[in-house]
């Protein structure tokens, strides 16, 4: 049985959360989803390994979750929005996780984003019709 290949797999540096990925990481994403509930967060914090077993994570996924390897967790099929429920309360923002993919710091990542603002107002003036304060 082979999963169908999709054109979007060729978009560079991008992981599309499709059936194949979701299927492989269902239990792990279910664990993260449970973190909407405070009592589940507390249960996890009290014994992360046992909580992973309760959700039936693979040994590999369990190891990643226990050591809080957020990048590893994402590469292993976590959906970014579910992963955020794990990472953000631990001081790791979605931007930090994005930066980790490129091997740069969160501050460097934010610097690069800020470059998008340079020349933007002039650009929009030229386009015409945009609000400019």
């Amino acid at each position, binding site marked *: 049985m082979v999963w169908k290949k*999709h*054109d*979007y797999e060729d*978009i*560079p*540096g*991008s*992981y*599309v*959360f*499709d*059936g194949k990925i*979701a299927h492989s990481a*269902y239990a792990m*994403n*279910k664990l*993260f*989803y449970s*973190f*909407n*509930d*405070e009592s589940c*967060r507390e249960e996890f914090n009290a014994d992360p390994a046992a909580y992973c077993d309760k959700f039936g994570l693979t040994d590999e996924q369990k190891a990643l979750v226990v050591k809080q390897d957020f990048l590893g967790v*994402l590469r292993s099929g976590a*959906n*970014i*929005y*579910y992963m*955020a*429920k*794990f990472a*953000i*309360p631990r001081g790791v923002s*979605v*931007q930090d*996780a*994005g*930066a980790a*993919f*490129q091997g740069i710091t969160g501050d460097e*990542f934010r610097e*690069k*984003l*800020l470059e*998008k*603002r340079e020349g*933007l107002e002039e*650009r*929009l003036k030229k*386009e015409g*019709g*945009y*609000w400019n*304060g």
Partner: protein
Amino acid sequence: MAEIIGGITTSHIPAVGNAISDGLTQEHYWKRFFDGYQPVHQWLEEKKPDLIIVVYNDHGLNFFLDKVPTFAIGCADAYQNADEGWGLKPTAPFDGDAEFSWHVAESLINQEFDMCTCQEMLVDHGFVNPMRVLFGDHEVWPIKAIPLAVNTVQHPLPSARRCYKLGQALKVAIDSYPEDMKVVIAGTGGMSHQLQGERAGMINVDYDLECIESIINDPDWFADQSTDHIMEQAGTEGIETIMWMVMRGALGEKVNCLHKHYHAPISNTGAGVLLLEGGA
């Protein structure tokens, strides 16, 4: 008779809500973005709509992967915001309008849109932040609101064209509601951004501006794009912008653009604010 008096586009990212909560809206980073909502605030003040349909995607609060509907509509009299796991304080609940929702749901299903009806529904930041940035914070919100959730998380997603058609069907549904009611549709999310992968942090200003022009003047250009193409241009999470097509479809063929605002970056995204009225 109910009437769609306008459509709005807006970001829905968590950082927008945080900036409001932390009182940062007039800081340099945020000022240009938030100031760009003033004309929308004035229009809302003046027009006093009765109800807003917020087209958004759930990011893992009300829906988990065990049940991912392509399109879901709230059919309740109230909607609660709730803990998303990040320690944010939930907002006051939102008043809905169950009769209106069921009218719309019935019309959509009769028009062959296979809706998921939700008589209880937690609304996440994708719904809440548009409400906050458009209306400010309230203990009692000044407008009724209905959540309309589009799956933009678990592929396969509905196409941009299908979203556009949903908007067209939404117009038929609303136009046929027998009571007087002024309705606004908000298309939320986007614009270009990617949160994961080695391409995380991409923003495509050129593409965002093309999309904005298309939404105003040539919605078929947007509707004809494949999901793959949009992700390639706008990022894997930028695909959210397909939800603007629901709003656009609901406005009819031509629109008048009353306000057009773009800013980047806000957090990881390009942010577009449009205020549109159905035109001739």
